[in-house]
């Protein structure tokens, strides 16, 4: 990556965002866009690559949860507990059904749950899907709202800016957790007679998470736009008579890519943690597979069956950790101040 090659130099002619030809960096790595430079640094960062690999692994699991559980021959169907469980032993799984009492068995590689006899592997796989779906959904939703609000507030200024900033401040005065705590049960109660209740529950969770997660992005984008809109290229576009919509999307947006990528990479782990946290408190996903929900069930059995708790816990920790570390690496890679 460090050695400039012919195709890359040629590539600069078609690149939308080109580096200032007079800057120092352009002599070394000619014709690379800031994004390409950042990507090059990221690829060299071993921790970031390991994290990206872990994240891809979880995404793979989430997308193919059905196929993988099919391969192992497990499913999330409700079992008839008496057949698998040892009633005398406090409803723990019988030794022949895998860990913790028995050895490893291919029937239930992760063991089965106490009291319900559900297969842990299947719930773990589908838990990854729930977690990622909600986190990605909420991130997408929150980013779109945040970017639009930030762009409008920063670019239009005046009354619009004041009104939007007031809304941002108002939303920031309600702690996220408490807000989610308040709204989620109401949405759930409203729809709990519905047939597709689990889906509605997840959608409402995405809405609640996004509703209280967009403000940071809006503030960041507003600040960036405030400084960008006075720059020469935007003024030139205005003088040329470019319509506002085109200025917003063609002139400003490419310059906002870095802050957007950074805040998205910080939002994702926060939402994964929030989803599991709410489920742990018993107010997020309450029916279906969720790591947080499994953790809250597993606390009671921790002494006798620690594995039941560790499985979802490792899932959450690994995913949040790699998302966070990758986010940090992306931020460093995009920050021109940390140029090495």
């Amino acid at each position, binding site marked *: 990556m460090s050695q400039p090659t012919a195709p890359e130099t040629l590539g600069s002619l078609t690149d939308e965002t080109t580096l200032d030809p007079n800057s120092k960096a352009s002599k070394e790595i000619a014709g690379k866009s800031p994004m390409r430079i950042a990507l090059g640094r990221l690829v060299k960062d071993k921790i970031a690559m390991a994290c990206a690999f872990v994240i891809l692994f979880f995404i793979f699991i989430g997308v193919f949860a059905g196929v993988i559980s099919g391969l192992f021959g497990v499913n999330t169907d409700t079992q008839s507990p008496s057949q698998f469980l040892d009633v005398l032993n406090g409803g723990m799984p019988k030794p022949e059904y895998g860990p913790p009492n028995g050895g490893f068995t291919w029937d239930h590689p992760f063991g089965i749950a106490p009291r319900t006899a559900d297969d842990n592997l299947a719930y773990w796989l589908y838990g990854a899907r729930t977690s990622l779906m909600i986190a990605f959904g909420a991130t997408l939703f929150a980013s779109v709202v945040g970017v639009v609000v930030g762009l409008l507030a920063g670019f239009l200024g005046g009354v619009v800016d004041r009104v939007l900033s*007031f809304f941002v*401040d*108002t939303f*920031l*005065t*309600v*702690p996220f*957790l*408490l*807000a989610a*705590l*308040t*709204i989620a*049960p*109401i*949405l759930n*109660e*409203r729809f709990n007679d519905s047939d597709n209740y689990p889906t509605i529950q997840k959608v409402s969770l995405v809405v609640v998470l996004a509703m209280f997660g967009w403000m940071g992005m809006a503030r960041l984008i507003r600040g960036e736009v405030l400084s960008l809109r006075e720059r020469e290229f935007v003024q030139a576009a205005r003088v040329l008579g470019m319509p506002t919509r085109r200025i917003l999307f063609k002139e400003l947006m490419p310059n906002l890519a870095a802050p957007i990528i950074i805040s998205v990479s910080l939002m994702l*782990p926060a939402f994964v*943690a929030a989803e*599991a*946290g709410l489920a*742990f*408190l*018993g*107010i997020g996903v309450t029916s279906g597979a969720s790591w947080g929900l499994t*953790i809250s069930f597993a*606390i009671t059995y*921790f*002494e006798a069956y620690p594995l039941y*708790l560790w499985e979802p*816990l490792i899932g*959450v*920790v690994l995913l*949040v*950790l790699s998302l*966070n*570390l990758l986010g*940090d690496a992306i931020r460093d890679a995009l920050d021109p101040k940390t140029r090495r």
Partner: protein
Amino acid sequence: MFAYLVKRLISGALVLTLVSIAVFLLFWYGPSSPAQTICDRETSNRCGDRIEIYERTLGFDNPVHEEYLKWAKGVFVGRDIQIASTTYECEAPCLGVSYLTKQPVYEELVARLPATVSVAVGGAFLYLLFGIPIGVAAARRRGTVADKALVSSFLFLSSIPYYLFALLTWLYLTVLWEAPYVSDTGYFPITDNPAKWFAGMFLAWVALGIFGCTQYTRYTRGAMVEALSEDYIRTAKAKGLPPRAVVYRHGLRAALVPVVTIFGIDFGTLLAGTIFTERIFDIDGIGYWSLQAVQQKDLPVVAATVLFSAVLLIVSNLIVDVIYSVLDPRVRLS
């Protein structure tokens, strides 16, 4: 300064009004019938037609703005609340009557405040006590192996969701290893038995303290690295001040400004209810209370906790801005 304070207080009051309206509307239009829960509970799930009595006495058949004004008036002068055939007196500041205990919500809130304050103060004390000195030490040794090891291990620790960290602390120390003296977690009034209060709170403080410490170390280190590269630090060194004075009197004072800002907001949030900490360590404070209220659909309590936290955040924001202007002479409030 005075004009600024008045302006901020007015905008704070405006935000609070907006939040209270939002909460009110949410409970009004959110559930299929807001009176359903209390009706079910009082008639042992044979509510049926009697829901009308509850809706009428609780005012759910009136226009929503009238009821909001009635509620808002109650906050300032108090009011009587009728549920079915019983009337409950609710003195100002009246935030309603709990559907579950029939006690005025405000009184219950005040009763639970000491537990939450204990958690917040103890935890915050610990993380400041360790976070700031460790951050300063790391900044002074920037780039060394010790600094790198510390930064990466703290980054690792703070990337784990807090509640899982607290949960593991609790599970291992109290359930598995049954640590002597501190494994009976919970809130015991400090006035009754200070030793028991301390023992009950200790693990919650440690969990909160260690986790917060990792973040405050990072903030302090970052601010300190920046402060130590300033020109006036070079001047202080050049005129022969002892390193200790350079770092603490000149560097740390400037570096603390952003840390104080973050701490102010953080502490306000902590006081508003440390939901996970209280839930995991079984401490009956505001956070646990709001969680229980949500699960039991005790609407007045939920509304009160949301408002309470909004008040705390607004006030802590204001205090932070004022302190900021005192600490940093470059900041002018306007």
